[in-house]
């Protein structure tokens, strides 16, 4: 027999389950269910429209100075290095002269991993020299990219939990170096979010936004069963555009984000 009295709405329990199971969270789910109750038409379509609206944050590509600098950040294992490889390929087939840099001077074989991606797509890569810290690699990379008149420089960074203050400070130092040599901010700072992440995703977005002013989000591993609905409270609260989605481990498994397709998948 049905367990009543614990839901936000006993009549909309199925819709509530869809939202909560997609990691949309209790706060936003409760709010959406309340609005649903007041709507007399097709409640499912109403919800879909609401979610699409929340996610439809316009993304406008920026350009300040050559080379365009794109910094990729996020917590451990979220898919940054793979995404840098995919982005390099994506920009390359769109007629950009791309160079990548491995500013992960910490994790074992991080540089070798990115080097293999660079070879796969025949793209130049700036590697750290022995004893260099991440900021020094970034400095070299921008100098190199400027000298060789590259269009785009993609920078891979080490995974870091948003709770590690000193690692967030390291990112700030990297950004200061970029500002200094480029005479402008980096064009993009992409936060990479794993689609399987739970409510902690909101905290990640909050800290990375407050501390290093990320400009957009890329969500990875949407080829799994996780719906990635955490993007909805993130978009709702922080108004960050979602730029691309990662849907696999291959070089071409990166596509521009579509709110409609994303929301449709949540209700499947």
């Amino acid at each position: 027999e049905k367990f009543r009295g614990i839901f936000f709405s006993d009549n909309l329990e199925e819709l509530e389950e869809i939202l909560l199971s997609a990691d949309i969270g209790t706060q936003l789910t409760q709010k959406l269910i309340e609005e649903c109750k007041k709507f007399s038409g097709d409640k499912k379509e109403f919800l879909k429209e609401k979610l699409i609206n929340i996610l439809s944050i316009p993304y406008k590509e920026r350009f300040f100075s050559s080379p365009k600098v794109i910094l990729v950040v996020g917590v451990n294992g979220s898919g940054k290095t793979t995404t840098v490889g995919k982005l390099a390929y994506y920009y390359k087939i769109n007629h950009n002269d791309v160079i990548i840099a491995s500013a992960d001077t910490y994790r074992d074989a991080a540089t070798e991993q990115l080097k293999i991606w660079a070879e796969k797509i025949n793209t130049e890569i700036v590697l750290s020299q022995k004893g260099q810290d991440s900021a020094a690699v970034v400095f070299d990379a921008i100098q190199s990219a400027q000298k060789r008149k590259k269009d785009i420089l993609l920078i891979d960074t080490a995974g870091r939990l948003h709770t590690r203050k000193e690692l967030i400070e390291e990112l700030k130092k990297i950004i200061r170096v970029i500002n200094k040599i480029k005479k402008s901010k980096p064009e993009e700072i992409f936060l990479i979010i794993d689609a399987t992440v739970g409510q902690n995703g909101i905290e990640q977005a909050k800290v990375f936004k407050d501390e290093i002013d990320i400009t957009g989000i890329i969500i990875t591993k949407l080829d799994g069963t996780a719906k990635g609905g955490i993007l909805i409270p993130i978009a709702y609260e922080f108004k960050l555009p979602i730029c691309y989605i990662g849907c696999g481990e291959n070089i071409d498994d990166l596509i521009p984000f579509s709110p409609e397709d994303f929301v449709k998948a949540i209700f499947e």
Partner: protein
Amino acid sequence: IIADRFIKLQRKILGYGRLSQKEISDTLREIRILLLDADVNYKVVGEFLRSLEEKLKSEKIASSLKPGELVIVELYKEIVKLLGEKPTKLNLTNQFNILCLFGLQGTGKTTTAAKLAYYYKEKKPLLVACDPKRPAASLQLQKLAERVKVDFIPVKEDIFTTAKVALEFAKKNNNQLVLFDTAGRLHIDEELMKELKEFKEKIKPNYNLLVVDGMVGQDAVNQAKEFNEKIGIDGVIITKMDGDAKGGACLSIRAVSKAPIIFIGIGEKIDDLQEFHPDRIASRILG
């Protein structure tokens, strides 16, 4: 905000005299939100509340003058119980032990393999790279093995050959513990799940260990269910618990797979592996 909610819930419940049906429903609704916010799975929460409701309606609480206090205690105890009550140790023999680590992409398998080698250093462990796919995966484990100062077998083109070579080496070299690190795989990838099943059947590990990212949300049950049904999980390791994720996934995974959670990862260094304590995680989930 979770801690806030639990404190509010506590104050509310502690203020109750004998619990009315309405107060029981209100309390369950608050607990539901708390658990969902902590990333406990939707269906697992439903089951949990059902059994908690029985306890709340029980004579002991109904006749108590301070039912609120008993509710708090009951909630905590139920979570500790669901998590396994006490830490579980791996039962490693003095002979030959094989551990196989598997799980989704990026959860921390390779790092955890090295941590286990360090933890069981006295067993003369052998780290075996069985990820032929991810760029520089074998090199990553090799560097970790050098740091832990344990023996290492690099990956060959196919993991079955790699495993055969590793086991022959281990027997000759008197390694009492062989740790297989495998490639990250989706539980819905039929081919890779079949590969893992074959691997398990050929190698017959003493422990098949699922490695899960501690920040995972509702999807945790899908991972646990599929890996348990298709492969069989002997134990679970939850990583990245050094962050501020509540770790409700622990509850979901244990509820669905019935497998004990053995360790948690609490950092990137080789000594950042800790025994899993149900009571500590219960407190963490409750904020």
